């Protein structure tokens, strides 16, 4: 415990740095994945392509992806961009699949009613499909957020500072508390962000409050962190 108490400043600044490294991939991944997910849901041809490619992408181990990017995109081998871009790729890979499932979870009857009421496709997307896909999108976003925050630490192997610094530094100096502090704080950061996302979801989608079962029948995945996205779609 003494180590932790004497290094609160370091732990705090690394947590912030960790958060800074995590936020960009999460947000960019989400934004890029929405159109991809929509394409995957809407057209059979793009569906196969997008889901296959994203499926392969998140099969790539992170250490390998960090090392693969520099020659592909011309960054230095130890640049922070490698970590940021790699994590964005994972975020898109997870989120596109989740978004495809999310749009698939929207009741076809509701969609047809909107069309019948004279909604243009653009207005129907933002006014009906996007909000109704919200709960499943949020579930996907939560998975993205939590796994991105955990993965940032691997950057420490390449000299990119985050809470992962406490792993390598603590290992060098044989300080168990230091590594433990890194592990716990990584999980705390993930938990806090996950909680914020839940609150954000409640604020933006008040109709989901208190009716978890309703959502869960539509998609088997109301609770992202716990159950994860079901690639199974809304079907069953």
């Amino acid at each position, binding site marked *: 415990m003494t180590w932790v108490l004497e290094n609160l400043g370091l732990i705090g600044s690394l947590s912030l740095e960790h958060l800074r490294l995590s936020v960009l991939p999460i947000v960019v991944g989400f934004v890029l994945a929405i159109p991809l997910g929509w394409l995957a849901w809407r057209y059979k041809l793009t569906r196969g392509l997008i889901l296959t490619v994203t499926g392969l992408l998140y099969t790539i181990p992170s250490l*390998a992806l960090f*090392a693969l990017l520099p*020659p592909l995109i011309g960054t230095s081998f130890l640049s922070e961009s490698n970590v940021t871009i790699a994590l964005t790729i994972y975020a898109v890979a997870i989120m596109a699949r989740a978004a495809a499932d999310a749009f698939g979870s929207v009741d076809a009857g509701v969609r047809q009613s909107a069309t019948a009421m004279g909604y243009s496709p653009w207005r129907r997307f933002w006014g009906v499909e996007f909000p109704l896909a919200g709960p499943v999108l949020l579930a996907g976003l939560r998975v993205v957020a*939590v*796994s991105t925050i*955990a993965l940032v630490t691997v950057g420490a192997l390449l000299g990119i500072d985050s809470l992962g610094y406490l792993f390598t530094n603590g290992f060098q100096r044989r300080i168990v508390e230091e590594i433990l502090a890194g592990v716990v704080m990584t999980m705390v950061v993930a938990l806090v962000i996950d909680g914020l996302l839940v609150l954000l979801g409640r604020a933006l989608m008040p109709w989901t409050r208190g009716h978890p079962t309703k959502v869960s029948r539509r998609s088997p995945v109301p609770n992202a962190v716990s159950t994860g996205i079901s690639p*199974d779609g809304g079907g069953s």
Partner: protein
Amino acid sequence: MNLFGEAFGWILDPANWQGSSSIGGAILLHLYYTFVSVLVASAIAIPVGYLIGHTGRGREVAVAISGAARALPSFGLILLLVLVLGVTRTAVGAFIAFVILGIPSILAGAYSGLQAIDRRTVDAARAVGMSEWQILTKVEIPLGLPLLVGGLRSAVLQIVATVALAGYVNLGGLGFFIVQGIPLRDYSQILGGAILIIVLAFLLDAVFGLLANAVRPKGLDTRKTRSRASRPAAAVDTPTT
């Protein structure tokens, strides 16, 4: 792009297939760590998962564990266990970390495989006089196999990725080439190691994809929405470490 040429040159160079840190040895070691860990994790997770899936009890706990596991930084877990257990037991520490990381996917595959079964099927089995044990072994387990294989597939990918990090604690495997290559500034070796890890992950993914198809019971309703069902919920959509 020239770097990729050099990386493949490194992979194909016979000199790198000999000696104490040969590519072939690293691949075998990587597979060895992966499969032993998956076996141990399965021995723990499958019975528990079936118990949860059959009784329907304890699902919340399993779900919470899977969620927490996703937030667990695997690199930190390895270093922590290796440091705590000491240098003579490095491999044990790493194995424990791999097993811990493999359990949630397999657990989810096991219980969600059982839970995805239409309740009417189970009720019908009970109605024709099957015992609970018969229901489990003759109905639930066969019908749940595709999702279980999906869970195993996720666990294998997660562990393959984590074993790559074990290069840092001197356990060898394919990650070692990256860890050794960075301070040497040997980019063809770094990239060569990365390519080998990716190829290994893709191949294992493909093997499990085929396996998932093979174990799908013939009588099972394979509607369109089910066709991707080989990947269970909590298991899949986590990028691999």
